[in-house]
């Protein structure tokens, strides 16, 4: 059943976005931190990288033990790559490519984010 959850999440590139989902006001997200957005049956972790003025989105599911926790992880940077550290075992993932930076776990899916009129939008291809 877990593996079917994982299938829900595939990296979406900006070019393939067909739906921009209006998630919430930007002010609801913590500075330099994350929160979880529900879109249909998906859980998406959205991070407000205030220091760089950037936003990132990825699956909330940590591929290590399949728990919905990544949005509660700490964000940071590894040699210039923005990353999130899972709160359960500190596995870190690139917020740009989804790659596991400190191990050989499967990459996580990432999604495009845009900000319009004070709202956060997440891009999906379906």
């Amino acid at each position, binding site marked *: 059943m*877990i*593996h*079917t*959850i994982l*299938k829900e999440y595939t*990296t979406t590139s900006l070019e393939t976005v067909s739906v921009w989902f209006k*998630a*919430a006001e930007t002010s*609801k*997200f*913590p*500075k*330099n*931190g994350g*929160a*979880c*957005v*529900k879109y249909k049956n998906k*859980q998406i972790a*959205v991070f407000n*990288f205030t*220091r*760089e003025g950037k936003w990132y989105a990825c699956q909330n599911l940590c591929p290590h*033990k*399949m*728990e*919905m*926790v990544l949005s*509660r*992880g*700490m*964000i*940071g*940077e*590894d*040699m*210039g790559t*923005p*990353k999130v*550290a899972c*709160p*359960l075992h*500190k596995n*870190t993932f690139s917020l740009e*490519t*989804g790659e596991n930076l400190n191990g*050989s776990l*499967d*990459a996580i899916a990432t999604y495009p984010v845009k900000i319009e009129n004070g709202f956060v939008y997440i891009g999906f291809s379906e």
Partner: protein
Amino acid sequence: MKTVIVIGNGMVGYKFCEKFVAKQESKNYQILVFGEEPRPAYDRVHLSEYFENQDAKALEMASASWYTENGIQLVIGERVSDIHREDKKIITAKNREFYYDYLVLATGSSAFVPPIKGVEKDGVFVYRTIEDLEGMLAYAATLKAKNPNAKAAVLGGGLLGLEAGKAVMDMGLEPHIVEFAPKLMPRQLDSRSSQVLQLKLESIGLHIHLSKATNQILGDKSITGLEFGEDDVLDVEMLIISAGIRPRDELGKASGLTMGVRGGIVVDNKMLTSDPSIYAIGEIALYNQMIYGLVAPGYEMASVAVDQILGKTESLMAEEIDMSTKLKLIGVDVASFGEPFMPATKGHSVIFENKTQYLYKRINVSLDGKKLLGGILVGDATDYNMLHQIYLNGMAIPSDPSKLILPASEGGASFGSAMDLPDSAVICSCEAVTKGQVCCSVKDDGNETVKDVAKATKATTGCGGCKPMVTDLVNETLKSLGKVVKERICEHFDYSRQELYDIVKMKDIHDYDELLDTHGKGNGCEICKPVAASIFASIYNETANKQDTIQDSNDRFLANIQRNGTYSVVPRVAGGEITPNQMIAMGRIAQKYDLYTKITGGQRIDMFGAKLHELPLIWEELIAEGFETGQAYGKSLRTVKSCVGSTWCRYGMDESVSFAIEIENRYKGIRSPHKFKGGVSGCIRECAEARGKDFGFIAVEGGWNIYICGNGGATPKHAVLLAEKVDKATAIKYVDRFLMYYIRTAQPLMRTATWLDKLEGGIDYVKDVVINDCLGIVDQLDNEMQYMVDTYKCEWKEAVENPEIRAKYTHFINSEETDENIEFVSLREQKMPAPWA
């Protein structure tokens, strides 16, 4: 200007180019590369990763622009169709002609398709190129649309076959592996290790069929199944053939080069074919009557060919080629080296097998017990690097060889250090980097980090399996040079924790971003953020609520995250003293929120299974009942454990409970480099185990004995005596100072025992600082501690009373719903999280 033409742009063909242009002498040559695939060379070893992200770019060995930048002309999507050796020219499928001085054949191999009836049917694939994978993905998608439970088989249970099995799983089809031999990975594993691997793979959902000879592929137009014998049929709707490789040697054959009986172009130890201008490398080269299907020998061949062409004729291919392999198959470590299966006449085997943990280790040693001949590891290959080196270098082994594979016993050092290896030992076999090269890169070229050494030598840049060993070598070499590996917190702060502590205090910095802007670089990470948070807390006694996103996740939510993403709640029960009414209140609240309850090791009650949104609700009720946070989530004081002491106990010398409560309330909320615990015992029978704590008091005739720097946990350590027979006030004063001194000077996540170990002068120096005031700082230490005690506040009370802080306790930012994936099962009349898969 001479021209080198390379036919084939696979991993080995690319490696030839990379090594060629890296040489100074290559300036007088131009390189022309032909590849028939539509894209530049990519990493075929990690082909299955394509299923995870479908990002062909991520697999690229180098981008198309790399070839241009290095003056290499790359022609892709154009097959070379003919070689005219007498004119030294080649002709492509588009009928273009090119002349060469040297020709390098690196056409690799194609998948071997056994002559089984029906292989031409729709739904039968080979596993070799990205195009093959794209074909499979498209087919699997249509299958799944019709039947979500569709099955697919992989023909071949070797290394590649199992990789393909993972690919099938990733595509969402039910995976079946069909192998002709009676075991998996027949070239690398013996039957027992194959059984262990099989159990493991079956546990994650692969179906394994061994000893199956496929007679025919069933179905009309598309495949519907495999037939092994009469009445022995496996229904599958897709088949991936991974039954071995065949060299792509047709150009060699057509142009009359000397060929092997069963294919492959014959080469000598210069990688030269029967034509003195033509070299062959990789999986088409037949060297010592063998085709080598691994990437490391292919790279070695590329290196020899480069040297030969550039006139360095003494560079030759080794007589014996090491076929040792270590890999992660579907998340399972599998390694085999040297002679993995050995007849009993040649030596003895030492075998460790534990099917409950899917572990198998076998080593083969010579009859005289002095040399390691080979071995197999399944499930855990951490010993591989060292074992492989011992084998390669013929190093001596312990008289009891089982020490090589069994866990090191307590106190005993594990066998062998990387520094004991000879300089000639090849540490990184992908890039053929020796121990000598790694150490010289540190010693002579001044590289001081693994990253720099990797850049300079290319070690670790292939499969990465040698990284632990290279790290050891770099650190040990630095140490041997007398260079202290500088303690720095992480890439963002070039300071130790103590230096950063002083900076924050001196410059009166109150904000992480300000600290990073003024004394660090970049954007911070999960290492430096909690360190800074701990420093701010230790200096200003601010709670974790103030800068919540730099806190470790547990501190951010003021609770301990547990296995399924729910939290546990631990109110403070100072000294372990609790009234019946408090217990009733706690019980009522735990019942209301359906929490699992357990007594902790620190004499308090832990309530598990609270969902994120329930935390403030639970705490609101606990606070109303008079409880406060127990900081079980923080790097801070946990508990002060006590025995009942002289109030009840007939042996008690003093009131240990009262003292424990007083001291726990004194230090509660103080954040430190790591968690710390205390204990108070009423007599030397030591029922509170105070000597197993970071600080402990034991009542004796005439006062209290103070012990510091003990702990239980992974490396238990008894606390050592700081002072004897002192009164209570003095005891508190000394421990105040000791704790503040520790908080100021310890490295991140260093407990008091390790801190004392590393402190020059040890316990005598601590006595000098806190009792004799040799540094003249005790007044400062006293004041700092008093400030902490005076400014304590319960951070959970702060959180529930502040709507802004409370807002983060919701699973979704845009919905009131909770996480539906959290699953509990029942356990002894309570509940627990559903087990991890």
